[in-house]
């Protein structure tokens, strides 16, 4: 499998590093304090390729807790509020856009 670090990193705006949590697969975001959060608001925001590479390197190193870290775009409002930068990330954050058939 090609490591995400072997891929050319190109970002066009504010970005974060996200992954899935190992034990349950839940969506998690890399924070600025070398840990993970399930809150996008707590994600570390990077704005350059070098910053993104550094954050991704640190995330990839935590293979025990996170699966498949990658860089994803976000939008940052004037008040600092962070929103997902595309539909995929929006769904990962807020859940399926449909009503689930059941909720056990």
């Amino acid at each position, binding site marked *: 499998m090609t490591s995400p670090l072997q891929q050319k990193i190109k970002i066009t705006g504010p970005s974060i590093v996200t992954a899935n949590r190992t034990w349950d697969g839940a969506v998690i975001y890399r924070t600025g304090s070398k840990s993970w959060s399930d809150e996008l608001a707590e994600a570390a925001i990077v704005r350059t390729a070098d910053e993104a590479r550094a954050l991704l390197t640190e995330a990839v190193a935590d293979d025990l807790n996170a699966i498949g870290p990658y860089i994803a775009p976000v939008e940052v409002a004037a008040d600092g509020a962070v929103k997902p930068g595309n539909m995929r990330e929006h769904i990962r954050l807020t859940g399926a856009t449909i009503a*689930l*058939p059941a909720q056990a």
Partner: protein
Amino acid sequence: MYAYDDIDRTLVNERVAEFRDQVKRRLSGELSEDEFKMLRLQNGVYLQLHAYMYRIAIPYGTLASNQLRRLAHVARRYDRGYGHFTTRQNIQFNWIKLAELPDAMADLAEVGIQSMQTSGNNMRNVTADQWAGVAPGEVEDPRIWAELLRQFTTLHPEFSFLPRKFKIAITASEHDRAAIKIHDIGLRLLKNEQGETGFEVLVGGGLGRSPFIAKTIKPFVHGHDILSYVEAILRVYNQYGRRDNIYKARIKILVHELGIEKFAAEVEEEWQQIREGVLKLDEGIVEDIRSRFFYPAYETQPAMPDELKQAAHDPKFEAWRKNSVFPHKQQGYAIAVVSLKPVGKPPGDATADQMDALADIADKYSFGEIRVGHEQNLALPHVKKRDLPAVWKALEAIGLAIPNVNLVSDIIACPGLDYCSLANARSIPIAQEITRRFANHDTANLIGRLHINISGCINACGHHHVGHIGILGVEKNNEEFYQITIGGRADEGAELGTLIGPAVPYAEVADVVEDIVEAYLALRARPEELFVDTVKRLGVEPFRERVYATR
């Protein structure tokens, strides 16, 4: 039903113990994700957008009521109370936790359900006509052969590291309900002039990025040679399949690039070296498998019982009966298809409560048996005709007496971007909106048989290429768009659909489908001419003109 023997049970239990150890080592850090990924995939464990997804095989689409109840238990105990039936006779759970997976797997193993090889580059679940063993006119029950192939290919070392995944489907009826022509190997069971059982063997079908309809590689392979012939195909594939390029790794690409004649010659050469060897089946082996299938003790029943005559006065029952009930090989019995396509709901999903209730209905009215079809519907395969009114009422009580089988709202759809990490666009909300547009049963009936298939990406899990109307989600500049094809079909006359025009945005898809259907109603030669036949007769142009005239 097929009864597992001790070898089967031991194999499945050992696999559970092995996976439990692998999960433990992954969660302790002893295994990296790179090391673990292939192990989990070999057990049907994917990682999707929000969670792990667990895919479980339902070999040849046959389920016992206790197995369905156990699936309900897994949905309730380890997931979010529902499961999703797929286009390959599997069920998927979308929210399962890795840490709990071994327990779920062990619970399923107790009733003979397993997930081996439901993912990864190996031989996937061998699928079959969901009406196998009960369809009138069937040559013989194809599940006996499907089970032989399942046992032969499970954990077979030569088939465990193939260039890419590999899928076999089998049918024994003239009308192909198993979509064999879009499989890597399709098998059509038939008898030769001597009355011997054998197979027409097709190879190189598949959808995805490069869709192909399978070609006949050999018109008749004797039953006792089928394992060696399948092995010969796989040996040629193993030798020449493109391991260097994932997009060219499926056998369909090899067959296409070599040409069917050259490919067939390679297989023939390989086959001649092994056909008289250990893989030659003697009748005892086939008989042993056959003896492990249990069939209901059918009773003598009237062809038209009074209960059915009386119920025919209820238009709601009649609507369901005409749409969902199909002939059975045994007089006085019927196959009752249970649509999992309610208006406005995700296609193919069933709640744990519905699964439990359906298991009860199967116990009471269908000898405890349920079938799973590739159209993402279920069926009760052995219902006495006199019990049909009671079955209908019981299904209605759980929201599953939906009279839309084979109609426009009986949509095949993949999970799409709401769940899947590969998807570019959503499938389920598109399906939901279309079902709302065609919720009127009289309208749907007027339209007649029309299959809409939706995929959220080019991998085509929703079989969009072979939908009468096919819808493929793509991404353009961060927006969801949908390419629409018409004229595809997945049966014995399988064809790939033709693109009707430029992709349309998410909000317009249901409008376009309505326009296509309106065009069909105006263009069809007579009410009995099916949509797909009108497209075949006229081509796509008249549809293109009407749909895109105002766009």
